């Protein structure tokens, strides 16, 4: 028998609607990391089955990517300061840290473009170059999306009262996405740059 008790008897507005965006985003990111997983598996397969890896003439350079790694990893801390600021209701502080993160993200992308221009070989050179450009390119695309999310947060934070200590899910989501991009990069950097030195 299905009955309504008086406590449930006041329409939808009083019904509890939890904000499900964060678990939704996490689920999506688990799924997306599997796509990178597919690329990583492909890369590792070629690495195992090719004698000289990377083939001669397509070695990676290390300086710019290492600087890039430092920038991206530290930006993950910077963006977290932004979240800590908004939890203390400090919108200006949040904006400052998010702007710094955006600049760092843009520097990372510029560094990647610079690396592409100076490497001396293109995507079609050999299987290593194929993997290199696909993996870093897809990651770069994700950094770009993360950058757009941060800029979106900054734009929305212009509206008075849009974010506050109790209302900052959008900020949190941009941060989670940024951490995701960072984690993927750490795996990618290990595979593409560190492991090719051995």
């Amino acid at each position: 028998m299905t009955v309504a008790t008086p406590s449930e008897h006041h329409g939808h507005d009083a019904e509890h609607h939890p904000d499900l965006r964060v678990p939704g985003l996490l689920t999506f990111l688990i799924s997306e990391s599997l796509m990178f997983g597919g690329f990583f598996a492909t890369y590792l397969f070629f690495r195992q089955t090719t004698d000289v890896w990377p083939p001669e003439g397509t070695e990676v350079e290390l300086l710019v990517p290492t600087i890039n790694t430092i920038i991206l990893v530290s930006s993950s801390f910077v963006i977290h300061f932004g979240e800590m600021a908004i939890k203390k209701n400090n919108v200006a502080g949040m904006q400052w840290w998010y702007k710094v993160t955006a600049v760092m993200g843009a520097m990372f992308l510029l560094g990647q473009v610079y690396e592409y221009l100076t490497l001396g070989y293109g995507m079609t050179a050999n299987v290593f170059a194929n993997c290199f450009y696909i993996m870093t390119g897809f990651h770069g695309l994700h950094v770009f999306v993360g950058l757009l999310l941060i800029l979106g947060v900054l734009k929305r934070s212009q509206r008075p009262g849009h974010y506050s200590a109790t209302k900052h899910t959008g900020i949190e989501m941009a941060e989670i996405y940024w951490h995701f991009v960072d984690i993927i990069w750490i795996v990618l950097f290990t595979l593409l740059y560190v492991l090719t030195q051995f």
Partner: protein
Amino acid sequence: MTQTELPRNTPPDKNPQVAVTHTAHPKKWKWYDYFTFNIDHKVIGIQYLVTAFLFYLIGGLMAIAIRAELATPDADILDPNLYNAFMTNHGTIMIFLWIVPSAIGGFGNYLVPLMVGARDMAFPKLNAIAFWLNPPAGLLLLLSFLFGGSQSGWTAYPPLSLVTAPVAQSLWILAIVLVGTSSILGSLNFVITILMMKVPSLKWDQLPLFCWAILATSVLALLSTPVLAAGLVLLLFDLNFGTSFFKPDAGGNVVIYQHLFWFYSHPAVYLMILPIFGIMSEVIPVHARKPIFGYKAIAYSSVAICVVGLFVWVHHMFTSGTPGWMRMFFTISTLIVAVPTGVKIFAWVATLWGGKIRFTSAMLFAIGLLSMFVMGGLSGVTMGTAPFDVHVHDTYYVVGHFHYVLFGGSVFGIYAGIYHWFPKMTGHKLNEFLGRTHFFLTFIGTNLTFLPMHELGLQGMPRRVAMYDPQFTSLNEICTIGAFILGLSVIPFTINILWSWSRGEVAGDNPWRALTLEWTTSSPPLIENWEVLPVATHGPYDYGHSPEAQPTATPEVSA
């Protein structure tokens, strides 16, 4: 997307007296609402079902053309390239645009929020986006015929896919990436809806088995679909941008594609059958008037299929130079999947045992499914063992097997679901006479078409060919006759749907006297499902325990 952005919410007002204003909403959607970017899960569910059915008709016409061609040993109706294009797109459309979207997208969207007592899915707009990715994907596939048609089979194995009709193949890849995205977005919606939005009164061990099945399906889709996307992106780059991932002469390797492909596409067979298992677990107890046998065993076996299903993909690659230890591992893991599947089959049979079976069309299709799926499952076990698989690889035995599973399993299940839930969706019952006609034509047609294929395969007829040795002619003729009967079977069904939708017998809220929550609202349900959210006070399958406790939660009672 916040909950407050949804149009369904009147301005937040905690005053209980004001809450009555929501009754000012229209009670029903108009017909044109179904052609818009509507965010109601019920509209989206029907959009999925109807679109998928249209694609089923298109894919079915392709199948009939293929069977007409195969009625004779020579290629005299379709030229071989066109035959390949039909064969490829038949498989692609049936899997990606008919079974998966109707079973998961259609029934899942329509039923999951109703079954867990929610007003909508967790992310309604995302849900609508997920649906609207499907029609363009289908159009891309049809468009590919202008460029020669994708011809490499639904697996698109390189190097074949790299040498046939490149534009058509690229369109094919884009179409699959679209439906894959749709599937990922839909799945994350289901996971969050089921985990987070069920009414508190509904305990986990009272969750309808269909929801368990959709949960397992969604997890599987979330984990496997992106891997296919990775593989397809690499294939797209090979086709168009000069990379050589899958070009052996330039250092690439075709077997990697097979791994990436089957890591998704083997789980895809569970994506097609797990929701159907869920439908079976709903239909059988209702029409047999018995509590389902082994609720927990059925729920956990869905989860087990989901987990083990991720570790069996290599059985599609036993003949791809797979080393012996892998064949061993994947033979064993493949055979293990038969265990949770068997658990379900036995649970359904045990539910039927001694039940007061009502032979409605829904029940007929469910029982038909049971018999045919056992057959398909057993031939699957034979092929899961590497030695036998090597023998029948790429023969019609394989075609016969997977059509028993996909047609005798999934399609029968979708039909059973439609006959069962049509009264809820439209407020009208389907005509039983037409339903039975539909069932018997389908049942005879399926067996006539696909049973001889096993024999053809054992005799060595290769699959994916437009011409064959004349010794196979007579069996192929039987298959073709069966295929035409299958084609005919759609006619009474379509008439039934169209006629019953407008003038069928009025069903009432709960024509089957079922106990799951979706039957506690009106038929068709109100726009926000319930005036007042229901409270579950008994299990979903407690038939016969307390005969007087039939669900009677009409708005009057609630009020």
